[in-house]
Each structure stands twice: as structure tokens, then as C-alpha cells.
């Protein structure tokens, strides 16, 4: 009996994750084709292009050795990111609730932090030709400051990623802990059970405020405009991802769509109380929430310029204060 339950759970998790993964590959295409392109009154790419065809294309490209002091580690990092997102999604399924160490907010926060730390490492380990290594004679007679310390643009990305870890993603973590104030437990099982008994946390005042904060945090974690300071095209270009080619770039593309999906599911678990399982029609609600987030992010990013510290800091402070307000209201 026990063995068949375990087998059933493993099978259910596997099927759920595979279905979720397949849907997630469409999300970047939906964002670009049906939101950005429609807002900008252009045709846009085919919906399968950014999330499916581009990764497949990159899989078959010839790989280059990345310019990095530790190329092996640099190449592993996208795989680590993908595995982290995979673990996160598994943790959100109801079958993982039996493992409290995995299905708790501490594990969720920890996994998201690993994802963020990967960006720091990627930035620090990438030394692309776009800045210092460009063979251009700019330090010649008459040039200014011939003896300065030179920095790669990816180094700036790494420093910015570190900053985002310390305060940038703070609103997201506050929003994650807001439902705890009502469920009085950090375990996902209890949070879900509380909401199934008392109604979704989203439809309370504290939940509404926390949802706004979660959305801001969602965009920050996904490095989407206007918060994409670690890969702003106007200075650091692709930032941490600069040296990835071939299958590694393919994994980067796939992970982005997968993270978009997983964060949407995280919201539906924490704020609506519906965990994803392929054997229940409620998974349609999970997918609906994911699509709502993608649409909102697409609209918001299409109408905003990239922020610098001057705009970023007040936004994060504001979101953090809102997050604190949500927690206080939840406690009251």
C-alpha cells in the first residue's frame, strides 16, 4: 500500500512537472507576441519562437569555450538554476507536502536565493569581449588615465546582483511571508489547508496588498523591465548571460519561461490555496494565474523604461513598506 502510494506520488509529480514545463515554454512567446508586439502594433515573433524554437535552435549550435576564469563552473550555473526552479515547482505540488523540509517557505526562500546567487557567480565569472577584452588601442599616448583598474561590464552585473540579493528581492520575501501571518505556519500544507477552510488570502485586505508586493517582487526576480538592472541593454547588455552559447544559452532561455510559470504557481499556492496537480481541474486556475502574471508583467514592462538607482531604490522601499503593512494587517 505504502509503495503504491509513493509510486503514484512520484508519477503524479513527474506528469505535473512535465505538463507545467511544456506550458512554460509558451510563456515567453505569449509575452512577446500577444503583449509586447500587440501594444507596439507590430506582428511580433511566432508564439513558439522565443520559448521553444530558439532553445531548440541553440541546442544544435556549435558551442564555444566561454571566456571565464572557471569555465566549468560557469557552464554548470544555468543547469543549477534550472534544477532550482524544478525543485521549487516540485515543492509546490501537493505530493511534496509530505516532506515538510521541502514544502515550507524556508525552502522556497532558500531555493530562490540559490537562483539569485547563481546570477552573482555568472556575472563574476563572465569576461566577454564587449568591454576590457576588445582589442582596441584605447590606452595610447594622449589617452586619459592610463593606470586605472579596469572592470568588465559583467562585474557590474555581479555587483548589482549582489545588491538585488541584499535589498532588491526583499519585497518578494515579505510577500511570501504575508500568508504565514494568517495560517500561523510556514508549511505550505498548512497555508493551503487554512485557505481551503477560510477562503483565499488574496481576497483579504492584507492579501491584496501582499499580492501587489508579490507582483513587484516577481518582476524583480525575473529581471524584467523596469527592474532589469543586472541585464540592462544600455550598459551591461546581457550581463551574467553574456558568454553562454549553444546548449547553455538554450537552458537559460528554458529556465526563464519555467521560472515565470513556477512563480505564478507559487502565488496561486500562497494566495489562493491551490497547489498544482495534473489530476485535478484546479490546475486550470494555476495556469490562469500564471497567464495573468505574464500579461500584467508584459503590459507593465512595455510601458516603462529601465530604472536606475534613482528610481529603483524608492520603488523597492515603497514595496517593502507595503509588504510590512500587509504583514502587520495580517497579524491584526
Amino acid at each position: 500500500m505504502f509503495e503504491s502510494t509513493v509510486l503514484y506520488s512520484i508519477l503524479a509529480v513527474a506528469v505535473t512537472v512535465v505538463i507545467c514545463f511544456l506550458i512554460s515554454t509558451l510563456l515567453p512567446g505569449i509575452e512577446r507576441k500577444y503583449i509586447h508586439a500587440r501594444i507596439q502594433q507590430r506582428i511580433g515573433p511566432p508564439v513558439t519562437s522565443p520559448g521553444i524554437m530558439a532553445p531548440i535552435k541553440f541546442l544544435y549550435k556549435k558551442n564555444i569555450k566561454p571566456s571565464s576564469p572557471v569555465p566549468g563552473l560557469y557552464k554548470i550555473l544555468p543547469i543549477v538554476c534550472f534544477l532550482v526552479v524544478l525543485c521549487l515547482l516540485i515543492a509546490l505540488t501537493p505530493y511534496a507536502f509530505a516532506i515538510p523540509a521541502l514544502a515550507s517557505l524556508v525552502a522556497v526562500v532558500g531555493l530562490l536565493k540559490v537562483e539569485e546567487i547563481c546570477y552573482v557567480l555568472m556575472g563574476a565569472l563572465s569576461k566577454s569581449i564587449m568591454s576590457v577584452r576588445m582589442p582596441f588601442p584605447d590606452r595610447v599616448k594622449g589617452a586619459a588615465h592610463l593606470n586605472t583598474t579596469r572592470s568588465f561590464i559583467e562585474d557590474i552585473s555581479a555587483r548589482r546582483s549582489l545588491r538585488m540579493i541584499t535589498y532588491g528581492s526583499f519585497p518578494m520575501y515579505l510577500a511570501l511571508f504575508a500568508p504565514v501571518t494568517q495560517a500561523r505556519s510556514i508549511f505550505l500544507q498548512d497555508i493551503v489547508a487554512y485557505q481551503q477552510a477560510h477562503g483565499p488570502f488574496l481576497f483579504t485586505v492584507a492579501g491584496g496588498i501582499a499580492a501587489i508586493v508579490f507582483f513587484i517582487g516577481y518582476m524583480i526576480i525575473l529581471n524584467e523591465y523596469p527592474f532589469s538592472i543586472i541585464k540592462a541593454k544600455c550598459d551591461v547588455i546581457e550581463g551574467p548571460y553574456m558568454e553562454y552559447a549553444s546548449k547553455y544559452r538554450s537552458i537559460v532561455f528554458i529556465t526563464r519561461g519555467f521560472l515565470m510559470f513556477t512563480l505564478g504557481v507559487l502565488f496561486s499556492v500562497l494566495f489562493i490555496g491551490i497547489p498544482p496537480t495534473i489530476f485535478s481541474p484546479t490546475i486550470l486556475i494555476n495556469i490562469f494565474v500564471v497567464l495573468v502574471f505574464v500579461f500584467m508583467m508584459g503590459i507593465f514592462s512595455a510601458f516603462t523604461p529601465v530604472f536606475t538607482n534613482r528610481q529603483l531604490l524608492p520603488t523597492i522601499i515603497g514595496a517593502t513598506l507595503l509588504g510590512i503593512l500587509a504583514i502587520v494587517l495580517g497579524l491584526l
Partner: protein
Amino acid sequence: MEEKVPRSNIIETEIPLGTVHPAALEPYRVRLFVEDEIVQEAEITIGVNHRGIERIMEGLPVEKGNALTEKICGICSNSHVWNSCRTAEIGLDIEIPERARYIRVIMGELERLHSHFLYLAHGCETVAHETFSMRVFYLREIVMELLAMIGGNRVQYGCPIIGGVRPRCDLDEAKLLRLKTDMDKIEEGLTGFADRFLADSILISRITGVGVLPTKQAIRLAVTGPTLRATGVARDLRTTMYEYDDFDFNVVTQPDGDVKSNLLMRVLESFESIKIIRQAIANIPEGKVVNRDWEMFDTDMIESYIEVPRGTLYHSYYLESGRIRHCIIRTPSMANIAAMQYACIGDHITDAQLSIVQCDPCFTCTDRAIEIIRR
């Protein structure tokens, strides 16, 4: 506004960007000297696209030289060939038919419109506001089609020739009507864009006070064109050009010299260009479009300055036996490069490319000298 001074004593790190960078439309190297991501000094180096056009022109028949000048720039190609022909016309004392003069003005102003629209789109793209960028590109498309209608091409129109304009660029009633209709469309679209642009408080807060170039500094650095006018100096060479004698237009200025002033400057100047084109359509005289009644003779140095979309353009020739003996071309970006370096100072590194873009660079056209480094 206080003058900006490089704070070389607190430089922490150097961040070189380029020569290839997606935020730059052209290849150039910029070394940003920063302290905690704030630019304290900047150094721009060009020279990647040196094509030696001045040297190639030496010895060419003047007509061929004129055609070659059109290849200097893909944005202000008409301005180059116009000024090149103008230089020869001044030296050879050639009178231009009135109708040709009007057509040249129409082409010049259409080129100003498409250059300013490209600037606006590039500026919005650099702050990562793709939506505004796309909307301006749609407006620019109308202008590009008009240029293709008159000149037969979207980039190299080949309109001015010595003595007037090419006969195929003459404007019949149908073309004038389309010009008139499309000016209405552009004006409507540009008004809508300007309204939305100014109403976008996030974007306005993002570009206000960024890349400031103080007036005194702009004058000292001999900045030209809209970049100078965006610092509050009402200097426009069109007010002294005989081609514009019949036209009534305002010299637009903006007070602050920052990115916002520069972007608004181009928007407002585009309305003035539309006004000029409408006057030209309404009053274009009948008659021939080219004067072929002229003779070639040797000249001393002939100089011509005109106002082009990005500032003041200078051409000079010596003509000998119908050929160009010596030629100098100076594009507006030559004067504006120093301004770009100063505009970056004091701003975040994310704004560095924006501060350079706000001065409307055209580095590929500016590459004139090459330095051989012996190792």
C-alpha cells in the same frame, strides 16, 4: 547651471564599452571612469570606420565628388550632397532656379524629420522604452516613403546636382498633394506622441536632469545644432541661409540641456519642419529645376556651411581643371563629441549611453583622420 568638471581625483574604476555595443548605433569606444557606478570622466575614441572619403575625392571630377559625398552618411545623405553642390555653386557662381531651391528645402526638411524621428526612437530605445520607440518608427516610415517618392530611394536620394535638382526629383501635382496629406498625418501622429510622452511621468522622471550640458560649456565646446539649442542658445544657420529666405519659422530652444530638453527639442523642431514644408508646397514656383548654363573654371578655396539635422555641416573645395584638388568635410558630431564626454559626468553608468545619444552622434560620418600606432 554650473559647468561640469571631470573629477579625476576620485576615479575608482575604468569601464570600457564598445566598439560594439547594442545601445550604440555606430562603432565607437567609450572609456567611463567611475566611482560607485557614477561617471566621473569619460573618453570617447572613434576611428573604426575611417573610409578616407576626402582623400578619394581628390582628383575626381566635381560631379563625381558630389555623388560620393552622399555616401558619407546614411541619415543625412541629402545634406552632404546638397552642401557639396552648394560649395561648387558658390565657387562657380551658378544661379539656382527658384523651383529647385524649394525642392532642396523640402528634401532638407524631410531629412530633418526622419533624422529627428530616428533620434527620438533611438533615445527611447536607449532608456528601454521600446513602445515609444516603435511608435516613432511608424511615423518615420511615412517620411521615408515620401523621400523615396521624390528621390527614388529611401536612403541615397541623389536629389541635388550642380545647378539645381535632378529632373526626376521634380514635384508634380500628385506628389505635392501626397506631401500635403502626409504632413497632416505626421503632425497628428507627432502631436499624439508628444502628448503621451509628456504624460508619462515615469519616463519623464527617468530623463529629467540626466546628461545635463550647461549653456556656457556648450558654447565653449563649440557645440552645434539642436544639441546647442537644447541648452537655450538660439543659433540656427538656417536663419542665414539664402535658401530659407522665403520661409517663416521659429528657432526652437529648450532651457535645460538635459535628455528631456533634447528629446523635446527634436519634437518641437519637427513641427517647425512641417511648417516649412507646408509653406514650400503652397508657394513652390513654376519653372525649370536645373540650370545647366554654367562653365567650369579653377577656384581658390570655396567654403559652405549649412544647418543639417544634427548641426552645422562644413564642406570646402579647391577646384582645378574641373576636378577637386583638395576637400575638407566636417560633420556636426566632430564638434559635439566633447559635449558627449561632458554630458556623461555625474550620472549613473546606465545613463552614460543615453547622455551620449542625446548629443545625436554620427561617428561614422565623422571619421576623418587616422593615426598609425607603431608598436
